[in-house]
């Protein structure tokens, strides 16, 4: 086997694909949540804080109730509260969503660090009841795809359902139409007798729930009931990039998250051959390329419209 083939076989293994799915899941869940607020015309950069809250309260619930379901329940409850809180400030009181998003991120970091130390002490916590990985015997017979999809955390499979539901909701129900209208043409929606604000409340609520799920996946699914301060590690911002790239389409947002996961997995494995500083820039390079693509696509459309 030549050196090149060796590199290829380490970089593109089943493990790479498994990691792609694992790493993409929290980003994808948050990105689908972000798509909701994006459709409603709210630029939500507070997703990172929402993820962190979900991660912490997931572990806290799991610790207090000694069951992963209790953790999931508490994370969801907090997601609802954070979503409502966000809507209260942004929709009801019309604060600048950018500032509130920033505030939410710092708020979440401070609050979770403070509570973590109050409850678990300086050492943080780990080994609380976590959500089990699913073993599907029928999958193990399929080569490559089998091991890639098998033995993943429950959330990985759940995310596929969420993507489908979100797509149906946004594009196939009247609620979805109103949701999109509330961002694009709020006045028209108002004329039709539907409050754009109500749709924005719903969008914020859904975003809070989905981001909390993303956090719970991080601490209870990907890790076994572990919380570390600032463990969201900017996943919320990556999710935001996915939202913009996908033009808030849930399916495309999932694909964008998969791409990030894929390049993260490749980057880790390439480190055996290339400097880590270089592989570390991959997600950011991808973001820049994505953004250039988005802008170019928009301009092309404008030109087409002008010609027509």
């Amino acid at each position, binding site marked *: 086997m030549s050196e090149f083939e060796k590199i290829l076989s*380490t970089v593109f*293994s089943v*493990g790479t694909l*498994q*990691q792609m799915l*694992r*790493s993409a899941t*929290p980003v994808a869940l948050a990105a689908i949540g972000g798509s909701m607020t994006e459709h409603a015309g709210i630029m939500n950069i507070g997703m990172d804080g929402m993820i962190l809250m979900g991660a912490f309260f997931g572990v806290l619930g799991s610790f207090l109730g000694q069951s992963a379901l209790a953790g999931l329940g508490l994370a969801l409850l907090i997601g609802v509260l954070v979503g409502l809180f966000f809507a*209260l*400030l942004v929709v009801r*009181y019309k*604060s600048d969503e950018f*500032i*509130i998003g920033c*505030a*939410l991120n*710092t*708020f979440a*970091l*401070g*609050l*979770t*660090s*403070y509570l*973590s*130390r109050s409850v678990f002490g*300086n*050492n*943080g916590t*780990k*080994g609380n009841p976590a959500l089990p990985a699913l073993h599907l015997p029928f999958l193990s017979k399929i080569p490559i795809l089998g091991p890639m999809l098998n033995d993943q955390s429950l959330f990985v499979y759940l995310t596929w359902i969420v993507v489908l539901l979100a797509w149906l909701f946004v594009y196939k129900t009247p609620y979805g139409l109103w949701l999109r209208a509330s961002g694009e043409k709020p006045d028209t929606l108002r004329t039709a007798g539907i409050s754009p604000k109500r749709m924005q409340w719903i969008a914020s609520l859904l975003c809070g729930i989905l981001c909390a799920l993303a956090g719970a996946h*991080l601490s209870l699914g*990907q*890790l*076994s009931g*572990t919380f*570390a*301060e*600032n*463990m969201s*590690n900017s996943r919320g911002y990556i999710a935001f990039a996915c939202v913009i790239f996908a033009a808030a389409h849930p399916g495309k947002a999932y694909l964008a998250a998969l791409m990030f996961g894929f390049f*993260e*997995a490749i980057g*880790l*494995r390439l*480190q*055996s051959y290339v*400097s*880590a*500083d270089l592989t*570390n820039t991959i997600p950011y390079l991808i973001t820049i390329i994505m953004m250039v693509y988005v802008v170019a696509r928009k301009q092309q459309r404008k030109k087409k419209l002008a010609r027509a």
Partner: protein
Amino acid sequence: MKPMKKIICQLLVFVMMLTLFAGCKNQDKPTDSKPADTAAADSKPSGSEPGGSEPSLKLALVVAGQFGDRSFYDSSWEGANRLAAEFPIQVTQIECGNENHTAQMKNAADKNDVVVCVGWEFYEIADVAPAYPDVKFIWIDNETEEPIPNVLNITYAQNEGSFLAGYIAAAMSKTGVVGAVGGEDQPVINDFIVGYKQGAAAYDPKVKVVTNYANSYDDPAKGKECALALADQKADVIFQIASAAGDGVFEAAKERGIYAIGVDSDQKYIDPEVIICSMKKEVGNSIYDAVKALLAGDSSKWGSTWVADMSNGYVGIGYGEEGSTQQVSDEIKAAVEEMEQKIISGEIQVDTTR
């Protein structure tokens, strides 16, 4: 009603901002060393000021990241706490949370007699320390380019301890591949790695060492992915050098049924079934000893770099508390001890990136 809403809104935002500071633990720890204080006050001739319980020394512990990593920073925290418990010292803890290192260092120097900067990030100490000639600084894990009279640099021979960790890893490996997960591609972390590689080669030159970096010190999920990526390359003993992100390495090891090696503190207790040993870097003890010497009136170390290494006992291997599960056999332990003596005597020269 409109202005009312605005005020409520602003208040809510303000409260949110406040919680940010709630997270920064910047607490004054009043010393619990009452007996020593009162004894000192009693021995004074009568007529001395009633403020006899005034601490004799104010010490600030400024850490670059945040506590809760169960290794590097927490070790410094333990050292400071021991000082506070045994001497009339008032300890203030400041966490930078990976930003504003210079400002935090200045804040600490304004109010304290001794400032301990924990982390290689405090490069600005070269500008800050000369501005506070009466304050004694200790810089952990790095050194100033030029000696500064009121700065004591403490660096650690982590390469020597990592050599032993690499030796143990190679001895315990069944696949002939061992791994290491670093926090960042950065000189101190690489110092661990070169020692680790050399140690593994000392056991068997055929052993392959695979490494990667999490590029984060506080993302355990990323640390876990790093370890899984190494496990995919057949590594069956993985050394974590990534602070809190390293927690994920332990989880990956548990999931795959392989072994892990802890770092800085003796981390065996975290998961005794998976963590076979820890590379100890006694940051807390070195701070304790330096300040203790200062209290005794010995400030001769200031203005120089003190290398805390294996010969003076600040770097080594820990196998956990007595009675904990042991995976490393007594023969290997004996061989490790032999290696340790060879490093101390200088017979083995360990590579370094410092």
